[in-house]
């Protein structure tokens, strides 16, 4: 009996089966899949700032390839499965995932500006970032507000909601990277960016209170601790990053220079908050995977775990610069190494999921491989 040749296997497989398989995947694609681009981008930026240029260039080019692919998939999903997209927009668990589109746009803009000085591209991406933020913020919150049947707090709130905070801060960050030159009036632009930073703080305070309340007063199962719970830390870290960038930018502003101390104080507050979350999240992770023996199986939501590590590294680096305290750089370096490792593991998980390999893959065979094997046996 001849052993199966992979190429022959897929040649013999019914094209209709492959198309159905891909269509099914597209129909149920999580709106937060742009977290893949977000995570890749932020790890590249953090690597670049700390001198890991080869890694930064590689990840930047991976992101430049991934970003349009994700857009194609999103547009295809909107056209082919509009009902699924609307269902996601009214789902308290999945709707915040759309904000990852906003963040990934900003992260890509920051990458190309920092690494290649493609200022025009970065400016275009800032305007796209702003428009997407407006659409996502007011569409998502409107749809969730007017929805007739709503889940309880325990069912509806999760760490993914913090992506709305991340999205808001991302507008501020890319704007600061462009030195507030988008409007032709730097003072006005800085004022707008500072407002975005404050919007983000307002959202963080509202949402973190709800999440903390949910963790402390509702029963928490291992299933509730999805990878996006790390975004609790990521949102505080990005708020700190935005604050550090704004603080440096307003030094030379006639209008906002006297806010410098206030901004710096809040920046340290949010960096400390992000640092506070890390040990708790690590302990909860150990509880979930070691004590409760929940296996680590690849899930697209794991990209939401990679992003906070990269963001914490970058925000610590920027805070060290803003405060002129070099001892924080050691923390930034440890965080970037952790970020690269977690990115790599998650990337292997994604590849393994696609290939059906033993680790970080689903415990059951993919339906396509099963069909192929059954066909061969027949």
């Amino acid at each position, binding site marked *: *009996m001849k052993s*199966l040749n992979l190429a022959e*296997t897929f040649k013999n497989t019914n094209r209709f089966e492959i198309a159905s398989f891909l269509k099914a995947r597209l129909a149920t694609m999580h709106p937060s899949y742009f977290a893949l681009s977000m995570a890749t981008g932020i790890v590249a930026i953090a690597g670049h700032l700390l*001198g890991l240029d*080869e890694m930064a260039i590689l990840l930047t080019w991976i992101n430049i390839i991934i970003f349009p692919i994700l857009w194609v998939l999103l547009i295809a999903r909107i056209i082919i499965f509009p009902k699924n997209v609307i269902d996601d927009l009214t789902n308290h668990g999945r709707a915040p995932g759309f904000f990852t589109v906003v963040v990934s746009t900003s992260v890509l803009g920051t990458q190309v500006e920092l690494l290649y000085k493609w200022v025009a591209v970065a400016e275009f991406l800032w305007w796209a970032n702003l428009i997407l933020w407006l659409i996502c913020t007011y569409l998502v919150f409107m749809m969730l507000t007017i929805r007739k049947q709503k889940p309880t707090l325990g069912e509806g709130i999760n760490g993914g909601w913090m992506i709305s905070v991340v999205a808001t801060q991302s507008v501020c960050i890319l704007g600061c990277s462009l030195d507030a030159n988008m409007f032709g009036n730097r003072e006005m632009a800085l004022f707008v960016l500072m407002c975005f930073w404050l919007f983000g703080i307002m959202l963080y305070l509202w949402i973190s209170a709800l999440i903390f309340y949910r963790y402390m007063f509702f029963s928490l199962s291992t299933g509730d601790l999805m990878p996006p719970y790390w975004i609790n830390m990521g949102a505080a870290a990005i708020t700190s990053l935005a604050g550090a960038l704004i603080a440096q930018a307003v030094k030379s502003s006639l209008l906002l220079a006297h806010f410098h101390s206030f901004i710096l104080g809040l920046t340290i507050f949010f960096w400390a908050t992000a640092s506070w979350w890390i040990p708790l999240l690590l302990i909860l992770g150990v509880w979930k995977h070691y004590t409760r023996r929940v296996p680590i199986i690849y899930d697209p939501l794991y990209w939401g775990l990679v992003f906070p590590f990269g963001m914490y590294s970058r925000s610590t680096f920027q805070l060290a610069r803003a405060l002129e305290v070099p001892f924080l750089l050691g923390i930034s370096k440890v965080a970037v190494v952790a970020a690269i490792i977690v990115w790599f593991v998650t990337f292997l998980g994604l590849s393994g999921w696609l290939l059906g*390999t033993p680790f970080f893959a689903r415990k059951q065979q993919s339906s396509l491989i*099963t069909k*192929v094997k059954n066909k061969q046996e027949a």
Partner: protein
Amino acid sequence: MKALDLSKEKIATNTIKTKTEQYAGAQEQMKLGKRLVIGGFILSIMGIIAYCVTNFNMTLNQKYHGILVDNSGALLIPTLATIGIGTLVWLIGSFIHLKGAMNSDPSKTDF
């Protein structure tokens, strides 16, 4: 007639034996694939850590005008190569495992 029946029996027995051998071979492929996946993964992680440490040392070396660590720049390419080799080994292991999975007994799970 009897000779025909006997030869039919022989074919059936040979087919069963070949199937058993095939499934056993597939299991071996999957075991080999798993080992390569784990090995490649560990090698890549070690390469990432070594690459980061090398780069940080280089930066420190530049900052202190080369008095701290000598020739850390020479380790850059080997560390990147380690990451590349580890990833390649992982990929090869994945394909070997996938091939074994496709040849394995469909009534049993592969994990």
